[in-house]
C-alpha cells in the first residue's frame, strides 16, 4: 500500500495536482452562492473596487472612444433632423408669403403647383395642376409674390400650360416705376436674358429702376412687378435703347404659382381688335 502511494505520488504527482485543483475549482463553482463563499467574493470585490476607483481615469479614457463614436452617430442623426427642420422652416416662410400675397391681391388667386417643366433655350413651358374645372382660362396671368411668371396658353379640365417670361414668344407691356418709361419686355434666348424694346432714346430710363406691368398689357393688370433694369445701352445710329432686365422671379426655384382669376374685359378686348384694324 505504501509503495503504491509512493508510486502514485512520485510518478503521477502532476496529474494528481491537476485533478485535485480542478476538483477544488469545480467545488468552488458549485458552492459559490453559499454564504461563506459569497462573503469571500464580496470581500474581494470590495477590496478591488477601492483600487479600481483609482483607475477611473484610465477607464474613462478607454470609455471615450465608445462615447465619441456614439456622439458621432448622434451628431449625424441630428444633422439630418436639422436639415429637415431647416427645409420645413424655409418652405413654411415661402408658403406664408404666398398666402399673404393672395390675401392682398385685387383679384381672386388660385394656387397651383408646377408639375412639369420643359426648359430649353427657346421654348420654356410650365405645366400646372389646375385647369378649366378650377375656373382657369387662357390668357390668365400667372404670378408669385415676387412678380409675374407668365400667362396661361392652354387649358384642359385639370391641367394648364403656362408660357413663362423666359419663352421667346412671350411679350408683355411694361413701365418703369420712377420715370414711367413704357416698353415691351421679351425674352432673348440667344443672349439668355430679358430685354425691354421700343424705348426711345429720348426717354430718361435709368439702371436700377423697377419694371412693372403696364396698363396697356393685354392679359395682366397694371403694376405687377416684372424685374429690375439691369443695364441701359445707347448705341449710335439707333432709335431705341438696348435695355437688359433682371427678372423678379427665379424660374429655377419655382414650385408654386398663383393664377389670377381676372375676368376678361370684353369691351377692352373688342376695342383692341378694332385698334389693330386701324393700324
Amino acid at each position, binding site marked *: 500500500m505504501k509503495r503504491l502511494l509512493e508510486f502514485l505520488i512520485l510518478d503521477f504527482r502532476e496529474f494528481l495536482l*491537476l485533478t485535485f*485543483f480542478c476538483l477544488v475549482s469545480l467545488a468552488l463553482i458549485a458552492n459559490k452562492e453559499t454564504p461563506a463563499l459569497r462573503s469571500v467574493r464580496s470581500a474581494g470585490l470590495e477590496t478591488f473596487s477601492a483600487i479600481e476607483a483609482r483607475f477611473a481615469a484610465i477607464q474613462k479614457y478607454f470609455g471615450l472612444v465608445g462615447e465619441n463614436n456614439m456622439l458621432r452617430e448622434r451628431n449625424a442623426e441630428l444633422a439630418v433632423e436639422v436639415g429637415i427642420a431647416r427645409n420645413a422652416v424655409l418652405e413654411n416662410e415661402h408658403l406664408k408669403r404666398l398666402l399673404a400675397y393672395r390675401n392682398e391681391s385685387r383679384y381672386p388667386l388660385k394656387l397651383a403647383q408646377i408639375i412639369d417643366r420643359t426648359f430649353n433655350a427657346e421654348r420654356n413651358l410650365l405645366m400646372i395642376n389646375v385647369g378649366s374645372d378650377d375656373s382657369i382660362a387662357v390668357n390668365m396671368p400667372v404670378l408669385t409674390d415676387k412678380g409675374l411668371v407668365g400667362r396661361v396658353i392652354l387649358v384642359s379640365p385639370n391641367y394648364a400650360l403656362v408660357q413663362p417670361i423666359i419663352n421667346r414668344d412671350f411679350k408683355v407691356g411694361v413701365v418703369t416705376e420712377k420715370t414711367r418709361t413704357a416698353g415691351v419686355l421679351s425674352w432673348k434666348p440667344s443672349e439668355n436674358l430679358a430685354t425691354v424694346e421700343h424705348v426711345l432714346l429720348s426717354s430718361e430710363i435709368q439702371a436700377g429702376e423697377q419694371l412693372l406691368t403696364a396698363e396697356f398689357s393685354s392679359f395682366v393688370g397694371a403694376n405687377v412687378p416684372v424685374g429690375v433694369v439691369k443695364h441701359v445701352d445707347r448705341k449710335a445710329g439707333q432709335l431705341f435703347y438696348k435695355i437688359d432686365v433682371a427678372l423678379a422671379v427665379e424660374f429655377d426655384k419655382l414650385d408654386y404659382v398663383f393664377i389670377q382669376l381676372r375676368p376678361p374685359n370684353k369691351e377692352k378686348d373688342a376695342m383692341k381688335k378694332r385698334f389693330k384694324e386701324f393700324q
Partner: protein
Amino acid sequence: MQQRILFYTLGGLALALVQKFLLDRLALYDIAPDMMLVLLTFIAQREGQSVGTTAGFFIGLLMDLLHGTLGIDALSKTVAGFTAGFFRETEGARQTTTFIVAVAVSSVAGITAYYLTAYGLALVWWKLPIYIAVGVGYNSVVGYAAYQSALHRI
C-alpha cells in the same frame, strides 16, 4: 526557492492589477490579452509542471476574486499551467520560440477550459475557435514582448 516564490507572488499581484484594470479593457471578441497566462507559462516552464499547476490554481483564484467569480479562472489557469509544464526548459536552453509555443498551447487549453466551464452546454460552439484564435494571437504577441523585454533575463 523562497526568493523566487516571493518574486512570483509580488509579480503576480502587480500583473493581476494591470490585467484587471488595463488589459481587460482591450478585449477583442470578448478576449483580452492575458498577461497572467504569460506569467503562468513562464513559471511552469521554469519551475516545472507541479509548480505550474499549483501556480495556475492560485493565479486563477486571484483573478476570480478580481472578477467577482469563483472557480472558473482557477480551473482554466490550472489547466493552462499544467499544459505549459510540458514545455519545461532544460538548463541553459532558453528559447523565445519554445516560450511562445508554450504560451500559445497553454492559451488554447486555458481558453477552452474557461469557456467549457463558464458556458457548459450553452456555449456557442462555432465561436470557440474564434475565441481561441484571438486569444492565441493576443497572448503570443504579449508573451513575445514580455519575454524579449524582461523575462529572458530572469
